[in-house]
């Protein structure tokens, strides 16, 4: 019956499809056809099978699918256009989390896995795109597979064909890789593991199978796509196929495939939101949706235009004339008009030819844009005798950078926005701030406070007690300045609503419980939590050297005192730092009391920013909170919009058994600049990070105002990257 249906669909399809009428008209005949769609597995692909299609660099996606017995959510990120990284969270509905009802109740089994796909060749006129990838490469191995896949678009047909190993191989062919090495004859199983490890020995091992299919873009149907595929998944091997025979907590077998042909539809509701429905295995209906955004470029969301322009100084020509009589007038008008532009003058010097100002700001992510706006204000208030501007930037009372520019050159290129011309005339240097060197300084009354109240959410995802536990809170955030470089950061919150009652998993860690007591911390701070009350003192005694001394409640679980030092040469891509902290574990109610556990923790921090790829490599080596020693590796890429996608892992001197489930600490994160979504500029970032499992090994202190972040604008590359914003 099904094969007849499929045959008739294949017969009818050419009648409803259209030839390529022209590259651009296709966008209207097949709306959103340039955006590839997701498989049920949560990565870009056909229905169950992967494809060689990729999203642009800087894309972030989320996918959800339901296909008995699996419910699957996945997060997808593209640090490069040739690298797809994803994390899957699968609810396996034919098995219990454990056989201890008091522990997990009716909670079903949860599986977490990482996938990766690499584009080897881009599609060309005659050759397909070619990719290599793996599913569940660092998980329990429940879905572990590897594949090489090719995709080629011909008119409105996007064909895919590939070869698979592991769970996506129904073991039909001898593995062609055995001609290279006998290791590929069989598929090794990882021994002595607590999950979460790369099973490299198993990769591409065992018999292989071919798979393939097509995604067909249907004309004039609002972008609707039809998908059909030959599914090579071995459903006798994937998951817990035989119920209790496969796994002791499983209670039902998985439906076996009646056919290897799957078919379905994808409807792009918008370019980025796709709905999908398919019929899989000849007996299972699946559905889901995916949502994605390409956020790497400066105007990533083209429909939102910035309405945050430089506010010109009124009566500029008159002000210039008046200011030519007295330098104090220059200082005062600069102070006022900079403030109108959310730029804060800290000190100024005026001589015969040069106007020098020091300012701070927390509005612009682009330091060059803020400097450009300072220069505009100076040009609007400075009398004609001033021929040069020098603009110094400070943060936390420490000097960051200095920009010196001839006034004539700055001014003559504004109208045409000829920013490349002005770059050659500009000197950007490191800056060490010394207030005594300045004649004009605004009077600031200390202490001064900035605060806001905003909702906040604490989330606990994917534990054995339930999929999602959340806590909606009303947060209080404040910063009190006692001096420019002495501040108190406070974060507190009042609980509004939570579902933490069902949270009960106690720590089973044999290490000091530096992170695994998360459940009592969440539960006992439901009503009120003081998350941070950290006093910071910053100094930069010498150019490129930065120090921070801090004490108080440093994070949710620890309080103490310590310091951090950073050497960040202005023109270099390297930086090195060190930090040392004496900390004590906080009481679960997150107020002012402490528990018994005390430790000294510290690290040497190394940073390298690869200039071409914009990849930042950060190594943190030393003694961690649970008194294990090792190195934390963090790799991230920053995009021109400010989006940052990164991943990390930590290897310390504890064994896999001591670490527990997951074998070692690892995770990923992305920071999305909030200004992408608004018509106003903003320095804020929305952070999202995920660790598959919270364990104690490799855990480090999360104190506020890390020097690497505070001194971001103290590196030449971080200024010149945004040079095209100088007149923005």
């Amino acid at each position, binding site marked *: 019956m099904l094969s007849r249906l499929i045959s008739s669909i294949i017969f009818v399809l050419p009648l409803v499809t259209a030839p390529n009428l*022209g590259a651009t*008209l296709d966008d209207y005949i097949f709306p959103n056809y340039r955006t590839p769609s997701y498989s049920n597995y949560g990565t870009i692909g056909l229905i169950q099978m992967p494809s060689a299609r990729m999203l642009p660099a800087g894309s972030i996606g989320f996918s959800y699918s339901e296909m008995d017995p699996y419910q699957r959510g996945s997060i997808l990120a593209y640090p490069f256009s040739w690298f797809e990284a994803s994390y899957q969270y699968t609810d396996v509905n034919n098995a219990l989390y454990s056989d201890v009802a008091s522990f997990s109740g009716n909670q079903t089994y949860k599986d977490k896995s990482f996938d990766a796909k690499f584009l080897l060749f881009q599609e060309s006129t005659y050759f397909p795109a070619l990719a290599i990838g793996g599913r569940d490469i660092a998980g329990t191995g429940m879905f572990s597979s590897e594949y090489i896949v090719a995709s080629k678009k011909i008119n409105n047909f996007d064909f895919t064909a590939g070869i698979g190993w592991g769970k996506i191989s129904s073991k039909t062919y001898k593995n062609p890789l055995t001609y290279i090495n006998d290791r590929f004859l069989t598929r090794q199983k990882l021994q002595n593991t607590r999950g979460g490890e790369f099973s490299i020995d198993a990769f591409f091992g065992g018999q292989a199978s071919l798979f393939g299919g097509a995604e067909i873009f249907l*004309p*004039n149907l609002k972008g609707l796509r039809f998908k059909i595929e030959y599914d090579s998944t071995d459903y006798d091997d994937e998951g817990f196929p035989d119920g209790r025979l496969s796994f002791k907590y499983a209670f039902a077998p998985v439906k076996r495939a009646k056919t290897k042909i799957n078919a379905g539809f994808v409807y792009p509701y918008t370019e980025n939101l796709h709905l999908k429905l398919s019929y899989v295995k000849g007996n299972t209906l699946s559905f889901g949706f995916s949502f994605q*955004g390409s956020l790497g470029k400066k105007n990533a969301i083209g*429909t939102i235009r910035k*309405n945050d322009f430089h506010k010109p100084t009124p009566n500029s020509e008159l002000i210039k004339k008046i200011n030519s009589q007295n330098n104090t007038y220059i200082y005062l008008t600069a102070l006022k008009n900079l403030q109108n532009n959310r730029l804060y003058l800290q000190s100024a010097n005026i001589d015969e030819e040069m106007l020098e100002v020091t300012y701070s700001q927390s509005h612009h992510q682009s330091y060059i844009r803020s400097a450009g706006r300072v220069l505009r204000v100076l040009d609007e208030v400075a009398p004609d005798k001033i021929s040069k501007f020098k603009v110094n930037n400070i943060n936390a009372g420490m000097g960051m950078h200095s920009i010196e520019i001839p006034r004539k050159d700055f001014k003559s290129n504004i109208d045409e926005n000829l920013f490349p011309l002005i770059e050659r005339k500009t000197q950007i240097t490191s800056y060490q701030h010394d207030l005594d060197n300045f004649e004009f300084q605004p009077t600031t009354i200390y202490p001064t406070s900035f605060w806001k109240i905003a909702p906040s959410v604490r989330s606990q995802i994917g534990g054995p007690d339930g999929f999602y536990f959340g806590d909606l809170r009303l947060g209080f955030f404040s910063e009190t300045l006692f001096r420019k470089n002495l501040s108190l950061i406070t974060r507190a919150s009042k609980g509004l609503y939570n579902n933490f009652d069902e949270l009960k998993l106690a720590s089973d860690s044999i290490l000091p419980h530096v992170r695994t007591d998360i459940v009592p911390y969440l539960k006992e701070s439901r009503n009120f939590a003081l998350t941070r009350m950290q006093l910071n003192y910053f100094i930069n005694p010498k150019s490129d050297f930065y120090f921070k001394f801090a004490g108080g409640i440093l994070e949710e679980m620890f309080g103490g005192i310590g310091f951090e030092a950073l050497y960040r040469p202005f023109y270099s891509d390297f930086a090195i730092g060190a930090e040392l902290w004496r900390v004590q574990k906080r009481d679960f109610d997150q107020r002012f009391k402490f528990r018994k556990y005390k430790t000294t923790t510290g690290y040497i921090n190394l940073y390298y920013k690869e200039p071409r790829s914009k990849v930042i490599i950060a190594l943190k080596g030393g003694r961690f909170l649970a008194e294990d020693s090792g190195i934390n590796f963090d790799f991230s890429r920053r995009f021109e919009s400010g989006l940052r996608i990164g991943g990390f892992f930590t290897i310390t001197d504890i064994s896999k058994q001591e670490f527990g489930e997951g074998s070692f600490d690892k995770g990923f994160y992305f920071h999305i600049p*909030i200004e992408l*979504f608004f018509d106003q500029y903003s320095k804020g970032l*929305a952070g999202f990070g995920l660790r598959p499992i919270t364990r104690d090994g490799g855990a480090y202190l999360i104190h506020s105002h890390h020097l690497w972040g505070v001194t971001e604008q103290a590196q030449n590359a971080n200024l010149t990257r945004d040079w095209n914003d100088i007149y923005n």
Partner: protein
Amino acid sequence: MIFIIKNSILFLMLICLSSCNNISYSQVIPLVKLATFGVEDIEIDDDFLNQQKFSFIKVNVGRTGVAILTLASIKNGVYTWVSASGEKLQTYNGKIIKSFDVVYDTHFITFSNFSLNESLQTKQFDYTVRLFNPATIVTQEAILKTLETPRFGDEGLYFEELVTTNGFKWRFVNKYWLNNDGYVTKSIQYLHPKLPKYEINFYYK
């Protein structure tokens, strides 16, 4: 004019869930309100009319965009209207023939014989249209006819223009209301497949 699409709102909601405290709620609330209820319309009352020195149009684009565009020039029957934030529309006998700096722009390459008048019963037009973002050129066939009963105001004429696009499926009906002086006073037009309808009210000075 502001065009907010569902995508950005959805992404923002996900971000809000993950890190609310970094977001300025003074910015979020208007955005969510805009997405939920649409933009607040601009009321054109006598005070507003008296304040305007020049002819202007009020343009509503779907629920999420509204703007006042002032008449900047008239050349060969082409009226150019400009908004405060720089978007431009050009109209010819009440029909929008070009948009500039709207995210999805449209330029009519041929439009010269388009006209609305009392004696017109049914007339056929052929247009060549350049669409932007993505860029392509299409041809359109339009049938303009007058309907006997005015549907807007008490006086004047009402026209409907049934437009069929060649090359892909995009059919729509534009509507024009003409006053007794022969000027278009209101119009509903479709300009780009990715945009909702433009509703334009003309105010002549």
